[in-house]
């Protein structure tokens, strides 16, 4: 903070300091409030877990099954992260540097899988290949579901790559591969790590795909323990294990990122786009795009359409309409709450990093790996004691906000950081107080990025299932709960219309996120700052 350095032309230095301090005190208080809210689920977990005697906790943690599940989860995360990183970076680099026909169409097709919930993805693949099951199947599905995160994040990084360095490298006779590894990759590392972080945390918290594919991950175990045993303490112990694992992942990712922060401020000339137009590159890329479109878009859409057409049961249009409206309204409301909660955090994180801000950021990120069932149960416990908000759409929307706060915070802090310090200082010298600067200078510059972050929360919330099942008002159905209620494959025909409608509705925000002219702003959405 350099608030005290702001010269005030009107007031005395003293009053400026006190004004700055008030501002800081308010920001920090609000950060404290938000962090407290974010910690509700973790607080709940500790409360529950330690109702178990320590010896039982130990026995639970060290039984073979637990170790097995930790191993499966870790392997799954490593496999999905490695695959998405590899393929995502290659696709993004190709999109950025290679001259291609229908570039924007391909980009949309690459990002559209974001609109498909992992359980719908899995259903459609099982419907197509009845023997589709197991670890590799889960890697495949989670790879397809999370690939867009890495593509979007890498593209965002590529936009900022220093073009002059590439020119220099080329004049030294570097070939394309050398340029990529020596010049481009180091510069986009920060962005990649942001994308990879989302992929890893998502993989840890996913329930739909892994449970349908019979892969025992920590989330599945937590859900099973909770579903099958009325004492929730064992589930809480395993949840804390998941929290620990995600903390480990967040810190590893920070390490990876912090090795290279050199070019944080060296935004100079951007690269010229489409610099390569060699046939082999174009053909390879286009085939990759086509294959991806086939497995990640065509298969789900084809299966859903055929199921929809062959559905023997009359379609209940009224129920579809109600569920659609419910889905959109609650998800929107959740995104708005996330937006509001992320303001103080974003303000803190966009300033110079301190110990507090690093801690705050970690708490937010670790919370992102909590599965919906944990957040759901914590809010059932607290919410039912508060009575009046229990089983209201408000509490459900609040749960979405808690679950996806990291996404909103990332875009908030990223967008706020883009506001040049100079502009703020000039405004301050002109006599504007902090609030006026915020309103007149910061908001206009940061708003578009923040709006896209909010869109991402909205999109993710529409697909959410476990917390929705637990917290929705009784009798309140969203598209996700309707799809799940026809959970058995034998009744998938009945779920198809709901899944199709969800896909169509979710495609709208996905389309906004992938609009080529917006990608540069969407990048801040993906950039989870460390």
């Amino acid at each position, binding site marked *: 903070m350099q608030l005290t350095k702001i010269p005030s032309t009107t007031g005395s230095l003293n009053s400026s300091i006190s004004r700055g301090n008030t501002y800081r005190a308010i920001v920090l208080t609000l950060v404290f409030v938000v962090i407290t809210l974010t910690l509700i689920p973790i607080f709940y977990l500790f409360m529950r877990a330690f109702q178990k005697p320590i010896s039982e906790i130990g026995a639970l943690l060290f039984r073979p099954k637990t170790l097995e599940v930790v191993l499966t989860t870790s392997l799954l995360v490593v496999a999905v992260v490695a695959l998405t990183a590899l393929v995502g970076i290659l696709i993004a680099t190709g999109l950025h540097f290679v001259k291609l026909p229908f570039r924007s169409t391909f980009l949309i097709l690459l990002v559209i899988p974001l609109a498909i919930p992992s359980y719908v993805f899995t259903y459609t693949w099982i419907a197509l290949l009845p023997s589709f099951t197991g670890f590799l199947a889960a890697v495949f599905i989670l790879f397809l579901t999370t690939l867009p995160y890495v593509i979007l994040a890498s593209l965002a990084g590529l936009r900022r790559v220093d073009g002059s360095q590439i020119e220099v490298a080329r004049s030294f006779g570097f070939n394309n591969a050398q340029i990529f590894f020596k010049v481009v990759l180091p510069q986009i590392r920060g962005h990649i790590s942001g994308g990879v972080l989302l992929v890893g945390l998502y993989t840890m918290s996913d329930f739909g795909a892994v*449970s349908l594919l019979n892969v025992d991950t920590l989330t599945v175990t937590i859900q*099973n323990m909770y579903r*099958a*045993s009325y004492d929730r303490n*064992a589930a809480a112990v395993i949840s804390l294990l998941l929290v620990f694992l995600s903390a480990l992942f967040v810190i590893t990712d920070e390490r990876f990122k912090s090795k290279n922060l050199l070019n944080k401020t060296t935004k100079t000339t951007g690269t010229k786009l489409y610099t390569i137009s060699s046939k082999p590159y174009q053909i390879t890329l286009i085939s990759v795009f086509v294959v991806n479109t086939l497995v990640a878009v065509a298969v789900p859409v084809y299966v859903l359409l055929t199921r929809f057409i062959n559905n023997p049961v009359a379609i209940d249009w009224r129920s579809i309409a109600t569920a659609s409206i419910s889905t959109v309204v609650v998800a929107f409301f959740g995104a708005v709450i996330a937006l509001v909660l992320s303001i103080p955090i974003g303000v803190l994180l966009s300033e110079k990093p301190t110990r507090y801000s690093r801690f705050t950021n970690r708490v937010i990120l670790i919370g992102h790996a909590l599965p919906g069932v944990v957040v759901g149960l914590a809010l059932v416990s607290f919410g039912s004691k508060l009575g009046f908000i229990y089983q209201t759409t*408000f509490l459900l929307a609040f749960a979405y906000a808690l679950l996806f706060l990291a996404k909103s915070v990332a875009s908030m802090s990223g967008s706020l950081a883009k506001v040049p310090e100079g502009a703020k200082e000039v405004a301050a010298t002109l006599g504007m107080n902090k609030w006026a600067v915020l309103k007149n200078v910061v908001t206009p510059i940061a708003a578009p990025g923040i709006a896209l972050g909010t869109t991402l929360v909205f999109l993710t919330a529409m697909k959410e299932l476990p917390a929705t099942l637990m917290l929705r*008002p009784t009798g309140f159905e969203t598209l996700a709960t309707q799809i799940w209620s026809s959970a058995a494959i034998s009744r998938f025909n009945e779920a198809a219309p709901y899944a199709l409608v969800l896909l169509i509705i979710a495609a709208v925000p996905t389309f906004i996120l992938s609009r080529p002219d917006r990608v540069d702003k969407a990048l801040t959405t993906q950039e989870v700052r460390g």
Partner: protein
Amino acid sequence: MRKIGFFGLLSALLLTLTTSCTSSESKISELTIYSGRTEEYIAPYFAIWQRESGIKLNIRYGDSAELAAQILEEGKNSPADLFISQDAGSLGAVAEQGLLTPLPKDVAEGVPAKYIQGNREWVGLTARVRVFAYAPDRVKVLPTSFTDLSKPIYKDQVAIAPTNASFQAFLTAVISNKGLPFAEDWLRKVKANGVKIYPKNSAIVEAIDKGEVSIGLVNHYYVWEVAEALGRPINVKNGYFKANDLGNLINVSGVGILASSDKKAKAEDFINFLTSERIQSRFVSDIHEYSLLENIPIPEDLPPLSDLGAPNIDLEVLKNTKKTQDLLIKVGLL
């Protein structure tokens, strides 16, 4: 600024909307039910009640155990008036915490005493039999006891659903009849024999039909449910173990009224409706479950309960699911 105004307005609107929906204490015009019975198979009877009584039902569908856990978490603040469960265990767990209220004598009068919990905190609705479902063309030697399932001839061919309340009820019966070490030993042997885990009974029946496995422990009615859902005959039949084998356990679905409900009289009416002869015979003809009322015929194509040689169910025993679940966690099936 205009945007903030819009959001504010919207939030306010939504808040009033939600509170008006949920906190309506309007004089007994609705009952809230947590139903562990799948929507498809019980919703038609709920609809009849709504039509005839004019009382709206708010129904929260879910897994019996899941809903029991939710009620336990909610405690005295539960918004539910009634809890309908697929099994005795979930009801027992809720009753044990004092969250169900004893029912007056004039409720569910036709249900025999052995299907009513000791303190009358819940009553049985229907009976269902544990069976083994199997693919007739692939299983040449039928098991005669549940203990046979650990034999090498069934290696990698057996499916169970450890999270399922009915499976847990069966295991609870094993523990109470044969002891914990026996049950643990059996589970470990079955696991070592390559048992496949499924999330629920219907998934097991589907898996048998698809050929993933050949034999699975389920409730008797899933063979019909899955065939109806698929709209075609399936390659799965029900089989029964030898007389008195614990694998033939009879379990009940049941219903109780929450102690925290302020609409007990109406909730009692609703239980009387569900245990009336008219609705009970519909349970038998529509969803192939056994009625608990003595004068109602048994489901078509099924043996009378008395012919199954099923071990007698004792509701008090089946409620001890804690030991069962701890065991499942211990051997790594949960």
